[in-house]
Each structure stands twice: as structure tokens, then as C-alpha cells.
């Protein structure tokens, strides 16, 4: 617990110091210290895997948003980071619940403090959806406690279907998949690009962690078919809606919903390697896409003409990320989608079609972005070089990961 307390403590100090530079230093150093302690003391592979992703993305967002964040952003993000690193190691449903609350309340303030009308609306939506999520998870946990007498994750076998359904509802809101996705596009569109990047890349992975932790329930109850149904509807719906969007952040939000549905699909068909790989590659892909589109003044897709030609480094990163998003090898996202398909195929022969047709649909809107960004003429932009560093790092991670066999071997050894 000391690791989490370090981050929370640094967050409190940041809140009192009211200095952006010191807050940033506290934020990043406390994250690194607590990560080193975690690696040293724990050997839980799932926890290490997720906390590595969280640490990398938080650090990169910290650098990227240095010019747009205020001191309190770092303070609030510290609380969220503490709770997320806690959740990735938690083995107790009640602890998970407490940490979930610790994550969503600071983030509500991050959204609401932007003080724009649509931002406030989105934050209210976020608040209500998350209250429903928390209460349904709490009710589920209480039912499990009444039935079993404890809430440890190991003892979750043979629980009552109602408590499981409540848990799943809560998790689905956290992930933001189809019937519960309504808050996602609004929040992603109206918040700062850095915050949208954190939201789309890691905040929605919290639900995935909880789902992976309680996956043993699927084998006892025939729940996987329900989840497969929900996730297939969700991915098809969001991919189709994404084509019609005119705002790039909203489009990325729908794409993110689709990708979370792929992961849910993978979990419900037990394709282990694909799920972990996709969590990793999608985090970096969507994070760098949000960071990239945050560089430009306009969010309308039609006004992004020729953005790839302004700067060579940004253009290269944009091209790599958009090509990768069309699931073209040799970038990480292709391999993760490939392993997802592979895992799904060993579960059922028909199901991969749903995945594959969705991969093709998602190309439609990404290839449209490639066309607008690279083939048309538009105004030139200049960029803050501090903002391009994390983008380049994210892009390089996506390029080199498939060529590191050790990483894939590590992933294939992780047990649910």
C-alpha cells in the first residue's frame, strides 16, 4: 500500500504548492518511485503489465500537456494514477470499489474545471453514469458478500447471476461499450486533448482489469455468449457511427469504443495473448492519435486538410499511426488484432468474421483521415517541440514492439 500512498501524498503536496513545475516534478517522480517499489515487491504479472502501461502513458501525458495543464491537473491525476496502480494489483472486490471511487471523483473535477458549457454537460453525464456504475458494483459486491461471507477474488466461483449481472453493468459503464457508451463521445470531445488521451487509452482499461480478474466466473456460468453478443453489437455500431462523425475527437472516441469491444470480445472468447497485446498496442495507438490531433487548432475533420505536410516529424508519426490504425503490418496493432482473431478462432469458427469485418469497416474512416491529412493542401502549422516528444515515443514503441520476441513471450505467459 505504501506505493499508492506515495502518489496520493505527492498529489496532496501538489495541491498545496500551487506551482506547475514543482507539481509536474512531484507527479512524475512519485510515479516512477512507486513503480520501482511495485516491481520490487510484487510478482503479479497482470499487475506489472498494467502498471507499466499506466506509468508510461501518465508520464507521456504529463510531458505533453505541460503547457495546457494547471497545477491542480497534476494533483488530480496523481489521485487517479494511485487508484489505477492500486486496482491493477488489487485482489479484493471491496478494495477495487474504493479505488474506483478514488479514480472517478478527481477526474470529474478535471472535466468540470474546464468551465465551458459543453464541458460541464459532459462532466455531469460522466458523473451520473459513474454514480450508476459505482452503485451497481457496490450492490453486486454486497450481494456476493451476503452469499459468500467474503469478497476475495479467489472465492468468486458459483456466484448468483444477479450479482454478476450487476458487476458486469458497472464494468460496462467504466469501459464505455455500446448500451452504456453515451458519456464517452461527449467527454472525449470536450476535454483537453491530454485528458482525452488518458481517458481513451487507460481509464477505460480499469474495467478490463476487473473483468480479467473475475474471468473465472465465465467458465461456470454461460455468460460468455452474452458478452460476445454485446461486444459484437457494440463494435459494429460504433464503427458505423464513427464513419459519420465530422469531429475528429468524436470519431476517435467511437473508434476507442470499438476497440474496447474487441478486447471484451477477446476476453469472452478467452484469447489471452490477443487481449493483452491489444490492450498494450491500443493504449499507445489511441494515446498518440489523441495527442496528434490535439496539436491542431481545429477539430473538424474537413478543416484538417494537409496537416501531415506541416512538419516532417509530426507527419511521419501521423502517417505511422493512421496506417497502424488500418491494421496494416508491421505495427503493433496489426499483431494484436491478428492474435485476437487467432484466439477467437480456436473458440468458434464463425466469430472471427465479426471481428474481421469490423477491422475492414474501421479502415474506412482512417483511410479518409489519411487522404485529408496527406493528399490535400491546407494551412501550415508550427508545433511546440515539447509536445512532439511523447508522440514520437508512442510511435516508436508501436514500431519496435513486434520485433521484440521477448515481449510476446512475456505476454503469452501471463495467466488470467
Amino acid at each position, binding site marked *: 500500500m505504501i506505493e499508492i500512498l506515495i502518489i496520493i501524498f505527492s498529489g496532496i503536496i501538489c495541491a498545496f504548492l500551487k506551482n506547475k513545475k514543482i507539481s509536474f516534478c512531484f507527479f512524475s517522480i512519485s510515479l516512477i518511485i512507486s513503480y520501482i517499489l511495485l516491481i520490487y515487491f510484487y510478482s503479479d504479472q497482470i499487475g506489472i503489465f498494467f502498471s507499466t502501461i499506466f506509468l508510461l502513458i501518465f508520464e507521456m501525458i504529463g510531458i505533453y500537456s505541460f503547457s495546457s495543464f494547471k497545477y491542480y491537473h497534476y494533483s488530480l491525476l496523481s489521485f487517479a494514477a494511485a487508484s489505477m496502480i492500486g486496482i491493477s494489483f488489487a485482489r479484493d472486490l471491496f478494495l477495487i470499489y474504493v479505488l474506483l471511487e478514488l479514480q472517478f471523483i478527481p477526474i470529474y473535477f478535471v472535466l468540470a474545471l474546464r468551465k465551458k458549457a459543453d464541458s460541464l454537460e459532459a462532466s455531469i453525464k460522466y458523473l451520473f453514469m459513474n454514480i450508476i456504475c459505482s452503485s451497481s458494483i457496490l450492490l453486486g459486491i454486497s450481494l456476493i458478500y451476503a452469499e459468500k461471507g467474503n469478497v476475495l477474488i479467489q472465492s468468486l466461483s458459483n456466484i448468483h447471476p444477479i450479482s454478476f449481472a450487476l458487476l458486469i453493468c458497472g464494468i460496462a459503464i467504466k469501459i464505455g461499450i455500446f448500451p452504456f457508451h453515451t458519456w464517452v463521445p461527449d467527454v472525449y470531445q470536450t476535454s483537453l486533448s491530454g485528458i482525452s488521451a488518458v481517458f481513451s487509452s487507460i481509464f477505460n482499461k480499469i474495467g478490463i482489469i476487473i473483468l480479467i480478474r473475475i474471468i473465472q466466473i465465465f467458465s461456470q456460468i454461460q455468460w460468455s455468449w452474452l458478452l460476445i453478443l454485446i461486444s459484437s453489437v457494440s463494435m459494429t455500431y460504433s464503427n458505423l457511427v464513427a464513419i459519420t462523425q465530422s469531429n475528429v475527437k468524436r470519431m476517435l472516441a467511437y473508434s476507442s469504443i470499438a476497440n474496447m469491444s474487441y478486447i471484451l470480445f477477446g476476453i469472452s472468447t478467452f484469447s489471452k495473448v490477443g487481449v493483452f497485446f491489444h490492450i498494450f498496442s491500443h493504449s499507445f495507438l489511441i494515446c498518440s492519435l489523441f495527442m496528434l490531433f490535439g496539436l491542431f487548432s481545429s477539430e473538424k475533420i474537413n478543416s484538417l486538410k494537409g496537416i501531415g505536410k506541416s512538419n516532417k516529424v509530426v507527419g511521419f508519426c501521423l502517417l505511422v499511426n493512421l496506417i497502424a490504425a488500418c491494421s496494416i503490418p508491421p505495427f503493433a496493432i*496489426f499483431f494484436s488484432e491478428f492474435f485476437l482473431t487467432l484466439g477467437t478462432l480456436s473458440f468458434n469458427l464463425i466469430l472471427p468474421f465479426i471481428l*474481421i469485418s469490423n477491422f*475492414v469497416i474501421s479502415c*474506412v474512416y482512417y483511410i479518409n483521415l489519411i487522404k485529408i491529412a496527406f493528399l490535400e493542401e491546407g494551412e501550415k502549422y508550427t508545433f511546440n517541440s515539447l509536445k512532439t516528444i511523447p508522440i514520437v515515443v508512442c510511435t516508436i514503441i508501436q514500431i519496435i514492439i513486434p520485433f521484440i520476441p521477448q515481449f510476446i513471450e512475456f505476454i503469452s505467459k501471463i495467466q488470467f
Partner: protein
Amino acid sequence: MINVTALIYSITIPFVLSPLILIFKKKKIYFSISLISLLISLILISLNIPNVIQGNSIVEKYSWIDSFDIRFDLLLDVLSLTLIMLTLIVSITSLIYSYEVYDNKYFYFCLVLFSISMVGLFLSTNFIQFYLFWEGMVIPSYFLIAHWGTSEKEKIAFKYFIFMHIGAFLVLFGIVWQFTITNSFSIQKISLVPAQTFHLISIFFFLGFGLKMATFPLHNWLPDAHAEAPTPISSMLSGVMVSCGAYGLLRIVGSLSSTLLYWISLLAIITMYYGGLNALRNYQLKRALAFSTISQMGYILFGIGVGNSFGLSGALFHAFNHGISKALLFLCAGAVIYRTGYHDMRKMGGLLRKMPVTAGCFLVGALSLAAIPPLNAFTSEVLILEGAAQSGYLLFTFLADLMTVVTLAYMLLIVKRVFMGKIPENLSRIREAPLIFLIPMILLTAIIILIGIFPNILLDPISKMW
């Protein structure tokens, strides 16, 4: 000790050199870098020719993700050698041809990446590696069509991309499915799949590869993409890229069931006639040639569908011959369009006297595709027909034979519309195509005549393959 002739360098050296194209600003420098990188690849592959034509195959092993049997092994045998030589010859001639018209270094960068991906594709032994290069072709060619194409280029490039992507995912599905049975991504181990299951898997492979080959119901992308692409790229797309599908089918043909092969032959005949008859009625010069590509792909597919050694050797040989001839035809058509400024053949005529060299080269290419004896495609078409007759597909053989008449008809019709007759008033001051256009055209014409007179140069090694 480093083995300099290793196959891996024929892909990696051009790949490493290609970013240099983007650094320099002078056209001569970046053009020569792109030319040198392709020439290095050609030389490195050519060093292996004496070894390969004796019937040996060269294998190099490199590991990638061994825990999932994803490897980077390279294989050079007669099948891959023939198609690599075709790729590099067509790419280098197209590159030289581009010098006159295109002043953008990104054009040369994409062209080099495009051709190197195809070389990598033909060297692959692993399905994942194969898929990597298969998709690696799509991105550069997308940009080439979308940026330097003509008319509604962006719409057409989008269509091209989506079609290629659907095909790729169909292939990917087949790859993944066979992995669940064999636990291996090696292309050679596909024969281990039980025939009952492979029956179903091979349908996906056929759909994916057939989409690239523009087989009849899946041909829709080809006329647009090949007609509206920039001319050198049209010649690469039509000459080489469509053959990638044939290559994929030739690699797995040993495991295909006889029922599927019968349906492939039937589709091949339909494709032949569809492409040929459309070429007959089309007035757009490059579009007519694109439909002719569909028709010729029908021949290659027919050779594969025949399935015996004559048919397969004929298919491979025809892929080579068609590639060279079609590249030549596109380059000549490009020269005509460059000088006249028209795509429509009704506005042309009588260019024989004004552009004699172009006309001569075009005539050689046209007659070669129509299977006129001393030229190259004659031998390969005879081989395919002989294979078909041996397999007992007598009706199909007759239909395919009849098709050569249609081929001759549309080719001569194009020649007549473009080069014969009276010169329109506004074209009377036209000159011969520039020298830099003529060099690649004459080079390709020489290859056509050489292969036509001495087909054994290629036919001897090819006939040992099956």
C-alpha cells in the same frame, strides 16, 4: 563471416537506402539513389541465378517470434526467381520512365517501397511475413494512385485500398484458420492440413488471392485503379502486382481440391471473356489495356485451374510474359497520352508516322499478348492450352483458344484506333516520345523478342519446378 550474396540484403539494402531519397533535394541525386537501390537488389538476386536454374532452392533462416512460429526465412526457387526478375525489370524500367514526368521525391520513395515489398513477398516462406509484404504493397501504391493519378483519383484510390484490404483480411482468415490445425505459419506445412478442412480454408485463400488477380466477380477495382494510376505505376500494377495473387495460388496449388480447381477454371474462362469483350468496346486507351489485364489474368488462372505440370508451368511463364508485355503496352500508351494529352482513342489516329518507335513497340507488345508465334506469350499460352487438353477440359480449351482471336481483335483495334488512319488536325504537330521514354520501351521490346525466340532460357528451369 558475412555472406554478401545473402538474399536478405536484396530486401534490406534498398529498404535502408530508401529514406535517403527523402533527404536530398536535387532530382538527379534522389533519382539515382532509387535507381541504385533497385539495381543492387537486381544484382544480388542475379548472383543466385546459376545456382537456382539447376533446380536447387536457396533457403535462409532468420528468427522473429519463435514462440508462435513466426519466422523471417527466405526462399529462392524458380517460382520466386521468375517473378522477382519480372518485378525488378518492370520496376527499373518504370523508374527510368518516370524521370521525365515526375519531380517529387516522395513518388520515387513510394515506387521503391512498392517494388521492394513485392520482392519481399516473393521471397517469403512464412505466412505472416507474406502478409506483411502483401499489405506493404498496398500503402505505397495507395499514395501513388491517390496523389499522382488522374480524374477522380482519391475516390478510386479509396476503392482500391478497401478492396485490397478486404482481400488481405480474407487471406488472413485462411492463414489463422490453418494455424489452428497445423500450429505453424510455414507455407510449406499447409499440406499437413487434412483435405476435408482444407476444402473450406482454400476458399478463403482463393477469394483473397482472386481479388488481387481481379477474377470475374471480384474484378471491380482493377479497371479504375489501373487506368487512373500514373503510367509507370499502371505498368507495375498491371504487370507485376496482379501476379502476386497468382504467386500465392501457385504456392498452395498442391493442396487445392479438384472441385475447387474445376471452379477456378470455370471462373477463369468467364474472366477471360469478360475482360476481353470489355476491352473490345472501351474507348479509353488505358482502360482498355486494364480490361485486357483482367482477360490475361484469366489465362493465368486457367493454367492454375488445370493443375497439371503443363498448366502450372504455363501459368508461371505467362505471368512473366504478360508482365513484360503489359508493362510495355502501358508505357507506350503513357507516351501517347503524354504527347497527345487525350485518354480517349476516338480523338487519336494516324500516330504511326509521327511516333514510329512507340508504335513499333506497341505493336510488338500487342502481338505478343495475342500469341503470335515468334513472340514470348505464344509459348506460354500454348503450354496452358496443352495442359488443359491433357486434363480433359476440352470445352474450356476450345473457349480459351477462341479467346486468343478476341485478344488479337481488341489489340489490333487499339492499334488501328491509335496509330492508323488519318491524323486529326490538332495532333498534326506531334513529335516522337522523349528519349527517356524510349529506352525502357526498347528494353522491354528486346526482352519480349529474346524470350520469344529462345523460350528455353526460362522454360527449362520452370519445367523442373512441377
